[in-house]
């Protein structure tokens, strides 16, 4: 049974469509991320699940029951906000206790559950503190404990790490995912941060302008994007328009704005114009004259710019008679870090499996 199910959910504000027909289900124990730029309708979708926004049309199920006309307080959802939204006038313990009180949990049971919840987020020692006496990360953990203690059908997280600094964010990411897997709680996570989405999710729903662009596992989303939008939004990529051409040897090849590539499409329709995606990290740069037999498609390029980013070095290159590309190489300390300098000529190798054709 799925924990959350959206069937052609639409939300319109007058003439403006915030969410245009979303179909989505979060299976029991699954971690699903709504990923997209701001204004894509991801938060609106989450708020519809929580019950703060009423869908214009469509069906919404939480824990198997239809949520039409069910107010937020009668839905069993645990909600965590970006700004934590702790009750500032209540201690940590009282914050966590609030939901239990609303469920009329007996006092003794409440005490045990609060302790369990505090242990879960490793904050037992801060039980009597006020929210204003906690750091951002601690506040977010209290918010998480408060949402989890009521045993919701689904945990809804609205950019929960947006207000934390980078190190803490990375840390919380791992902690939350571990917690989620331990409790096997169905989770709907909203973020605009692709690193968060890729590292935590079972499935990612990429949204754009109120519509679902693609639903898939992190690997599918990153390596096999189905639309131009997903390709652009996830990771950095080189997108070129390509054409199938026939060479002298009667073999077909892919001409991407002048860059000759092997034909990976398996078709030979010449007129077709296709989008070719090449991830920057998949392109290899070699010194010219270095011997290699990986491919017949030899292209040379000139280094236009070099950006040193620590763990990686990012080059901008211009392929001879072809397009400009972004290429990244991991900075392996023992190889010559200054392999190339500005203006150098390099030989570029693009493995066949690094070339991806965007459908549509």
């Amino acid at each position: 049974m799925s924990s959350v199910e959206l069937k052609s959910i639409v939300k319109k504000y007058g003439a403006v469509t915030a969410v245009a027909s979303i179909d989505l289900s979060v299976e029991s124990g699954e971690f699903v991320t709504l990923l997209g730029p701001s204004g894509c309708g991801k938060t609106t979708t989450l708020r519809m699940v929580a019950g703060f926004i009423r869908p214009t049309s469509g069906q919404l199920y939480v824990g198997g029951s239809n949520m039409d006309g069910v107010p937020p307080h009668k839905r069993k959802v645990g909600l965590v906000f970006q700004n934590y939204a702790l009750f500032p006038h209540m201690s940590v313990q009282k914050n966590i206790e609030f939901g239990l009180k609303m469920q009329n949990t007996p006092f003794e049971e409440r005490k045990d559950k609060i302790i369990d919840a505090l242990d879960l987020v490793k904050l037992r020692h801060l039980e009597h503190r006020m929210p204003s006496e906690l750091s951002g990360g601690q506040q977010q953990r209290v918010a998480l404990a408060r949402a989890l203690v009521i045993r919701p059908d689904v945990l809804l997280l609205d950019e929960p790490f947006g207000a934390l600094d980078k190190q803490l964010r990375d840390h919380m990411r791992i902690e939350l995912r571990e917690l989620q897997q331990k409790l096997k709680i169905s989770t709907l996570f909203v973020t605009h941060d692709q690193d968060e989405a890729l590292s935590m999710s079972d499935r990612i729903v990429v949204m754009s302008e109120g519509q679902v662009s693609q639903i898939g596992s992190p690997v599918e989303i990153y390596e096999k994007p189905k639309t131009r939008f997903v390709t652009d939004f996830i990771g950095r990529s080189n997108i070129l328009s390509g054409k199938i051409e026939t060479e002298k040897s009667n073999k077909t090849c892919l001409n991407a704005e002048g860059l000759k590539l092997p034909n990976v499409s398996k078709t030979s329709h010449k007129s077709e114009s296709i989008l070719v995606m090449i991830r920057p990290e998949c392109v290899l740069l070699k010194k010219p004259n270095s011997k290699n037999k990986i491919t017949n498609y030899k292209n040379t390029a000139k280094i236009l710019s070099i950006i040193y980013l620590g763990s990686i070095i990012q080059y901008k290159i211009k392929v001879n008679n072809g397009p400009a590309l972004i290429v990244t190489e991991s900075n392996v300390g023992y190889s010559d870090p200054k392999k190339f300098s500005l203006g150098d000529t390099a030989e570029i190798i693009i493995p066949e499996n690094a070339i991806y054709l965007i459908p549509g």
Partner: protein
Amino acid sequence: MSLNSDQNYGALWLLTPTVLLYLATFLFPLILLGVLSFAKFEASITTLGFYFDNYIKIFSDGITLKIFFQTVRLSIYITFWCLILGYPVALLMRSCSPKIKMILLFCVVSPLLTSIIVRNVAWLLILGRSGMINDTLIQWELISKPLPLMYNEFGVILAVVHVYLSFMVLPLFGALSSINSSIEEAASSLGAPFWRVFLSITLPLSLPGIMAGCTLVFILSMGVYLTPVIMGGNFILTLPMLITESVREQYDWPYASAMALMLLLAIGFMVVLSSGLQRLVSRR
């Protein structure tokens, strides 16, 4: 600090007109008031000195103390009704669109923009013996005798609440606006119905606004003069009326000064009490 001390002093001198004005119109009269309140007034002659006659009179003549407490009671009623009527308005102002917010704000502040005489005459036309309400009700034969809508406590409270509502609504609106709505949403998602969210979250978090509004309205109500005079006829007596009367009818400045100081002390006590309470609440 990037400013050097010379510049600081230069800026301070700009305060001179304000300081002089305050000294002349506030501090000096206040000192005069203090001195006069210990003077003796006998046979229309004021003798300066250190006499407690006026204070003894306040506590022993039976009427002054009674009127003082009546003033306090009236002020509490006014404050209470301002709070009860103002809170929903502030809540509404917080949740509605900016345009409607502006309209509501204008409505709330509009009594302050109207001349006090015009306002009270308008009330006369509405509440009077042959005013709009009584006329209509008699015409419809719902009542046979005019209802006593003014020249009593009801009329005074209604008219004062009307003006002072804005002093309640504005601080309340400020306090309510500063509550992040996601806090209330969090409570609601944890299973709290709307009334529970209000009682457990919204109300306690708006307490600073309640305190500020109540203190403000109470202080103003303690000193309100003209509206009770018009709306109360001679039936409602307040301390400010007594003070005025003492000066204008009996020329008894010393006694008026003592009563004025007492009023000032009562208000000061309220301010201290409310700020103390507020500190207590925010520390919790």
